[in-house]
Structures are given as C-alpha cells and as structure tokens.
C-alpha cells in the first residue's frame, strides 16, 4: 500500500461525504457516473470474453480503476481535450464516443473510424475532445502539454488532461512534458493512475521517490494525491486542478492511488508474478461498490435498477458486436490512404501492385 499522508478522500466509510472536498455532485450526476462505471466494468468483462473466444484480438481493461478514469474525465469541460493512455475507453464513452463505433474498433472493421489500422482499444474521437491512442508508453504526455500550450498561445480557453500510468513516469516524455508545462505554465492536468504495476513491475521498481505526486516539485508544478477509488475525491481534485489551470496557475500532477485488479491486458497472466492475496485490501475498496452503497443508502439505486441497467448495456453491446461481426474488413485501398494527405506516386504504385496482385491466403478474423 502506498503511503497514506496527504491523500484526498471524500466518500467516508459511513457513506457520507467529507465537506472539505465534496465536489457537490447532483444526484443525477452521481447516477450518470455510476451507470458509466458499471457499463465500463461490464464491457471489460464482455470484451475479455470475446478475446478468449478468439473473436477479437486483444483488450486492455480498467478493472478497479473505473472511478479514477471516469471521475477525471467527468471533471473536465466539453471544450477541454483529453489525451488518453490505453485503459480509458469508459471515459471516452461517457464523453459521447458511440459504443457501436468503439466496438467496430475492437473488431478493426471497415466502420472503425481509425479504419482497422490499429489494435483494439486504439480508437480516436476528436468530436468529443478525445485524442488518438498510441501504444508507446508516455508519448501522449508531451503532446497533451503542446496542445494546451498551443491553445494558450492562441488565447483559447482550453485545458488538457492526460492519463498515464505509474510506469509512464519513468518515460522521457513524462520528464519533458512536466518540465515544459512548468516553464511555460501550461494548463495541463497530469493524471497518473498509480495502479501499482507496470505489467509485472511493481511501483517500487519504478521509482525510489516516496510518492509519485512529489515528482511535481522537480518541475515547479503542484502535486496532489487522491484516493483513486473514491469517485467524489477524484472529481473534486481534478476540478480544482482545472480551475488552477484556467486561472493561469499552470499545471497540476495528480497521483490517483488505485489498483489494477486484473491482468495488464488479455495478453498477461498476473498469477505469474503476484499472488491473489494482494487483491484483498483493494477488493474492499472497490470504486464501484462504494458508489453503489452510497446511492443505495440514499435510496437512489437498488438491485432492480442494477438489473435493468445491466440488461440495457448488454443488449446494446450484443447488438454492436453483431453489427461489427457482420461488417467486412476495411477495403484494401484504405491501407494507402492517410499516410499523407494525398498518396504520392510510390503509394499509388504500391496500391496498384496490391490491388492487381494475389490475395493473402487467410486474412485473420
């Protein structure tokens, strides 16, 4: 367990909210967030199952990190931009990314907006202020800074939030992004999901600093720690950081303390490097369960509502999968588009070679 000092918490064990940092969410807002957290978890389960059945190639889930992921995105405004890592599809959907389009991405179909060019979970949705997902760890961090800095230069009221893991704090882009944000007072919120692990590498092998938040001081940036399994605390902390950014007080590094309850991705078997007993202290702090208890206590939620919600999501999901599975792969020509704005001669030549040549024996899926 990470050190406990200075961690912002709001939702108390008795299910009341600490007024000091209560973000003042309306019931409707809490319900909205809760539904999306449930949806995120359900989709995670379903997508892992699809992968196990060989129907999709890969999935990287968010089990246990739903409050951190959704709470952070919720606190941002519509005009702000979010630079995702790879584990935050739930937040994209909450911001308005359509489930059907997401599922097309998971199958890499012709209707995938990134045209089946990237692995599952590597979608893009500019319309909802959502960046383009990349696998290399950390690269989105400097970009998030550049984006907000660009807006600042153009005197536009735009902040960015960038998600990344504890492992990413070791990357060069973390260092450069934090440093540039500090020097140029850029309104970027660095949202570090400290989930304990970088695949099999524990945080103690990632840094010798006591906490991740204190890395902020090296860049003249404010660093804060928040209970990442406390939805209310996350919303409140990110909102405050956003307000600072808007007021011209620069960037904030937020360390959200949470835990990766599943494997790193469908390619990973965590039993190889950690016992299941490590999950126990975290299971009792389940970010969704805590909000459900809060809602139930306030009689805003019950088992029937939960069943209805699950049935609804399930239906939507099944339909989306059915559509995606009926959708062909992207056309061959699409391989040569968007490399440049217009394909130069060599790509036209290669496109002709491909189109006029024989087909591969077994395009997978």
């Amino acid at each position, binding site marked *: 367990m990470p050190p406990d000092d200075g961690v912002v918490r709001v939702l108390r064990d008795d299910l009341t909210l600490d007024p000091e940092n209560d973000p003042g969410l309306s019931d409707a807002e809490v319900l909205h967030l809760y539904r999306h957290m449930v949806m995120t978890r359900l989709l995670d389960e379903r997508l892992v199952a699809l992968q196990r059945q060989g129907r999709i*190639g*890969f999935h990287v889930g968010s089990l246990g990190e739903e409050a951190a992921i959704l709470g952070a995105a919720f606190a941002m405004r519509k005009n702000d931009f979010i630079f995702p890592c790879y584990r935050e599809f739930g937040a994209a959907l909450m911001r308005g990314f359509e489930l059907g389009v997401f599922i097309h991405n998971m199958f*890499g*179909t012709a209707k*995938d907006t990134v045209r*089946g*060019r*990237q*692995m599952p979970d*590597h979608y893009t949705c500019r319309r909802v202020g959502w960046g383009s997902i*990349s*696998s*290399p*760890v*950390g690269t989105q961090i400097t970009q998030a800074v550049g984006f907000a800095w660009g807006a600042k230069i153009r005197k536009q009221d735009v902040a960015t939030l960038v998600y990344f893991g504890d*492992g*990413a704090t*070791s*990357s*060069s882009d973390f260092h450069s992004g934090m440093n540039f944000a500090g020097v140029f007072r850029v309104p970027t919120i660095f949202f570090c999901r400290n989930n304990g692990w*970088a*695949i*099999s*590498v524990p945080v103690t*092998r*990632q*840094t010798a600093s006591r906490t991740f938040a204190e890395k902020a001081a090296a860049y003249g940036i404010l660093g804060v720690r928040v209970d990442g399994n406390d939805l209310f605390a996350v919303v409140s902390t990110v909102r405050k950081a956003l307000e600072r950014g808007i007021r011209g007080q620069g960037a904030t590094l937020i360390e959200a303390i949470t835990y990766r309850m599943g494997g790193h991705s469908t*390619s*990973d078997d965590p039993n*190889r*490097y950690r016992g299941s007993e490590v999950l126990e202290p975290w299971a009792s702090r389940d970010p969704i369960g805590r909000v459900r208890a809060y809602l139930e206590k306030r009689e805003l939620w019950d088992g029937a509502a939960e069943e209805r919600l699950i049935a609804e999501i399930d239906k939507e999901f099944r339909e989306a999968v059915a559509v995606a599975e009926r959708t062909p*792969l*992207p056309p*061959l020509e*699409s*391989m*040569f588009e968007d*490399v440049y704005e217009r394909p130069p001669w*060599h*790509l036209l030549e*290669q496109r002709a070679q*491909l189109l006029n*040549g*024989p*087909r*591969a*024996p*077994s*395009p*997978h*899926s």
Partner: protein
Amino acid sequence: MPQMNMVQAINDALRIAMRADDRVVILGEDVGRVGGVFRVTAGLFDEFGDERVIDTPLSENGIVGTAVGMALYGLVPVVEIQFADFIWPAYDQIVNELAKYRYRSGGEYPAKVVIRAPVGGGIRGGHYHSQHPEAPFIHVAGLKVVCPSSAYDAKGLLLSAIADPDPVLFFEPKRVYRAAKGEVPAGAFTVPLESAAVVRPGRHVTVLAYGAMLYEALDAASKAVAHGVEAEVIDLRTLWPVDITTILDSVRRTGRLVVVHEAPRTCGFGAELVSLVVERAFYHLEAPPIRVTGFDTPFPYSLEMEYMPLSHRILPALLEAVRS
C-alpha cells in the same frame, strides 16, 4: 538432440552464456520474475538472481544508457527491448553513443552490449507491435545486426553475438518464436556472424530473406517448382556485415535476384542488398532485381496479412524475375 522452439533456444543460449561468464547480465522490462512477455528469459531470474536479471523502470533510454555504462565498466549487458517498436527512445544512446564509443575513444572504451528485440508482424500487433526496423541500425557505422530464422541459428548466433567484441542488435522474428522448432544441441555452440546459409539450392533465381520471411520465401520457392522455376533461397542470418560472398556466388550463377523483407520498402535493407549486388555483379544480372517488402505505410492491423510480403507475393516475383 533436444527439440526446441526459438524461445527455448534463445533462453538456453542466455543461460549458457550467463553460466559461463558472470559478467553477462540481463536488463529489461518484465524480464525478471515473469520471464519476459514472450517468456524468453523464463527461469533466469530464479537461477541468477535480481542482480543479473534485472527488471528496470519503464525507460528504454535508461536501459540502454545504463547498459552502455555497464559495458564501459566491463560487464556484458544483454538488453531486452520488449518490442522493437519501443526501441526508439533509446536510439540516441544506440547510434550516438554505443555505436561510436570504441571509435571516438581511440579504442580505450569499447562498449559491448547486445540488444535483443522481437520484431515483425503477423501477430495482430498493429503499428506498434510489428515493426521490423533493421535499416536504421544497419545505416549506423559500428553496429552489427543479426536476425535468425531457426531455433538452431537463434541459439548459435546469440552465443556468437554475446561473445563478439562489438555491439549487436539481435532481432528476433516473433511470428515464428514458437513455430520455428527443431533439433538444437544442448550445450554451447556458435553459428558464426557474417555467414549466410543457402537453405535451398536452385539455379534460376536467388532469393534473399531472413527472419520470419525466410519461411515465406521457402514456401514460394517450393511452389515455383511447378512453374519450372528453381529458386535458390539464402537466409542472411547476419544482416550487417552481410555475407557478401555467399550472395554474389549465388547471383552470379542465377543472374536474377529477389529480396524479401517485412519493413517498408523505401530505404529498407532491400535497397542496400540490391545496390550491393548491382554494383558487384551487374554484368551477371539478366533481369532487374525485385524487392518484395512491406508497403510504405505504417503497419496496419486488420490488413496485416495483405501488408506483409508473404509467399503469395513472393511467388509472382520469382516467376517475373525468371521470365523478364
């Protein structure tokens, strides 16, 4: 002789090298307890402990930079980059530092590091788990670049690479990590660097391939027989310095050349191979050399089988080379 796949063969080579020489250490992400995401270092952590099989922070720049320092001290670091696609943050340390150390210090500081990285497509990895980036390393003076295709060669070449006095990039074709299986001697043995292998003799056309594409070239060559074409397939094994003698011997006999690689065509290693042959065997060539390669696009996900230069694209090239 034991049967091994390529993962096991590489694992075996690492174990043998580490037992023989305690200056050999392994650094990388997830190489320790979990034994690497492809399990190439499985069991080594248990045998050699966490001072010789080192899980590092997530920084390729840091891994290679500190490995260079260890090498200057006198260790022989064998670095694992989890996927070759993630090697670029370390490119500065590799090309500006590691490659130039012996030269720039007048021989006072040779820096010997082996950098292992899985390369290539065909595992549904998209842009960032499929790159095959030999060319930008071959271009840099001071580096050696190896890419085995079989379990036997993987073990023998890795033992050579570790023993070699110069820095080596050791690219492992992950598509055949488990499929490339065969008899591999149990103890230490080496396959010399700079030696290509004629894996299928033939007299009509020379095919140069390496890594996972070797099998595609062989498949195409066997299909070409039905068309009356006997292709000679050469597995380059060491990409640089390449075994020019074996290549020229073959091309001078066949008069025709097809080069296969997964990386994008433009400025890929195929261009160098074509140029080397054209410069040295121009008057032996009876037809223009042909490159069968990845396209000049980022590596795609859904269409990866159409992107890769598989047998179905090599076969027509063989026939064309012979007919033109």
